[in-house]
């Protein structure tokens, strides 16, 4: 049986539903991300697990116990907020020890645990500081330590890095993942940043407009998206409108050119479908066994590690990502170029 089980959770406010029929089984020690744009219901779902929202219908079970209507201060889940929410009138040490103090633990136990936590977040000497004396990244680490100090069964993070600078975000997310794996604590991580979700999660739940779009590992979500929304929300995606020539063999026709995609195609011959293709799967030149398309270079953007080339094929645009190399000659705008990609890199998306 799963450690944390969310069954048919629904939350309706007045006329609209924020979350509809959310179902998820989370194993012990897993880090699951809820990923989606603003308003997709990811934070509401998290808050239902925390107890700050009561589900309109549905059930939440933690380690076999039904916690659906339990008060938030009775659940033993630790929460980290987007706005840190450190108590301004207390030092770092007092903040971290707050849950233990409230739980009436002994003084020496509180001290020991606080020191342990401060060591875990690598800030052992900052116990006497006040929150206003800390940077954003430091405050968030303290918030994490505070949530973990009470040894919760589940750790919940609500967009913890949104308020921080880009560089700190990258450092801190690895830090969070490191701590999570060290402690083996079951974690739900809410974010709208797909890079964040992809890099640290065991599994991702992609959400949109209150519903779950897809659940899977980062690899699955990125390479085998089930819906158009997931495909375009996670990563850049080329979408080409084509006509099916031979569904069984995966042949498609586009702008007078033919190519082969993953077979079989679930549509009738002659139907109009959208073929999806990731930019990094395209490369310049001619390769055996691969599809070839020709188009005109419209823009070349140098992103550092990646060179992004936008090309025009007929009525559509196609983006190609090439890894940077020092011996690379950047294509010129206006050139006609041939690009190729293997058939398995391209798939036909379900219409919806």
């Amino acid at each position, binding site marked *: 049986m799963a450690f944390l089980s969310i069954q048919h959770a629904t939350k309706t406010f007045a006329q609209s539903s924020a979350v509809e029929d959310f179902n998820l089984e989370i194993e012990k020690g897993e880090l699951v991300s809820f990923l989606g744009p603003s308003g997709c219901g990811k934070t509401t779902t998290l808050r239902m697990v*925390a*107890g*700050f929202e009561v589900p309109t219908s549905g059930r939440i079970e933690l380690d076999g116990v039904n916690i659906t209507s339990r*008060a*938030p*201060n*009775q659940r*033993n*889940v*630790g*929460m980290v*907020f987007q*706005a*840190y*929410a450190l*108590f*301004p*009138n*207390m030092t770092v040490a007092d903040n971290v020890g*707050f*849950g233990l*103090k*409230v*739980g009436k633990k002994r003084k020496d136990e509180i001290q020991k645990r606080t020191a342990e936590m401060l060591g875990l977040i690598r800030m052992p000497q900052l116990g006497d500081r*006040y929150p*206003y004396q800390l940077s954003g990244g430091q405050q968030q680490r303290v*918030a994490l330590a*505070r*949530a973990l100090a*009470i040894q919760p069964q589940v750790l919940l993070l609500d967009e913890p890095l949104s308020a921080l600078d880009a560089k700190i975000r990258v450092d801190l997310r690895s830090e969070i993942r490191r701590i999570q794996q060290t402690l083996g604590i079951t974690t739900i991580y809410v974010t709208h940043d797909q890079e964040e979700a992809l890099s640290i999660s065991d599994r991702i739940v992609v959400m949109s407009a209150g519903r779950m779009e897809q659940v899977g590992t980062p690899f699955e979500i990125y390479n085998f998206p089930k819906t158009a929304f997931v495909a375009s929300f996670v990563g850049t995606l080329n979408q080409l409108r084509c006509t099916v020539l031979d569904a069984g063999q995966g042949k498609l026709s586009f702008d007078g050119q033919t190519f082969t995609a993953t077979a079989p195609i679930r549509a009738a011959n002659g139907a109009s479908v959208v073929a999806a293709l990731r930019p990094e799967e395209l490369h310049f030149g001619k390769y055996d066994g691969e599809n070839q398309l020709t188009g005109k270079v419209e823009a070349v953007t140098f992103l550092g590690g990646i060179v992004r080339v936008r090309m025009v094929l007929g009525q559509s645009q196609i983006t190609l990502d090439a890894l940077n190399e020092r011996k690379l000659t950047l294509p010129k705008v206006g050139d006609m170029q041939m690009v190729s990609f293997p058939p398995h890199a391209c798939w036909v998306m379900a219409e919806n």
Partner: protein
Amino acid sequence: MAPSAVPAPRVKRPTSGLRAWLGVVPFFLFAILFLILPSIKLFVGAFADNEGQFTFKNILQLFTEPSILNAYWLSIRISAVTAIGGGIFGFLLAYSVTIGGLPKALRTMLITFSGVASNFAGVPLAFAFVATLGRTGFVTALLKDVFHFSIYDTGFSLYSFAGLSFTYMYFQFPLMVLIMAPALDGLKREWREAAENLGASRTQYWLRVALPVLLPSILGSMILLFGNAFGAYATAYALTGGALPIVTIQIGAQIRGDVLHNPGLGYAMAMGMVFIMAVSLAGYSWLQGRTERWLR
């Protein structure tokens, strides 16, 4: 500071030369003439005796003359009572319309009314309370007719310390509400949620987080209320006609006719009052600074 024939001005540069200070000359001139000079006159006068020689006698007499001590003590008492009472009830009112969960419309009503009430002080306020709690006041009559309870028989009088304090609340409550409502708004919802999440009950949250965070604000506001009441004159005069010899009324009497027979002493009284107001304002500012630092 006439915006005269100066063409398109240069792009900003921190010009702190003499020319830059010209721009604030009118303001400073006004302040010097009508704020600073009068204050200095009083200050200097407090240290002069009847012959114009420098002396500390007047200041010392502030602490020895019984009528003056009495006046200060009375003023301090009434200011303290209305500051604490006004502070507590004002806080409860502010709480009720912010976190307390009353409908938004009531909050707007309270805030608007607080602005009105704090401006209503002085003669109109005194008259209004006479009409309410005077010997033939509305509430007095109501209590007598309906409950057969005559408040004046219990020794209560509107024209006493108790009555004046009760009247003062009309501008003390609103002042507290106007300061505390934003402060209570500043209590982030996430703090309560974080506290709950860590196992605290509502009482524990209030005792350990909310009240400590609000304390500088509350104390600072009470100090402000203290200063507010200390400097009040018109309400007291209109209500009691000078019967309650608080400091402001004494100073008023001194201005009209040198009742102390010693101008220097009058100035010293005024200075003593300014000193108390200054200390209270400083206290308020310092506590405000603390609040702002925490709630960055």
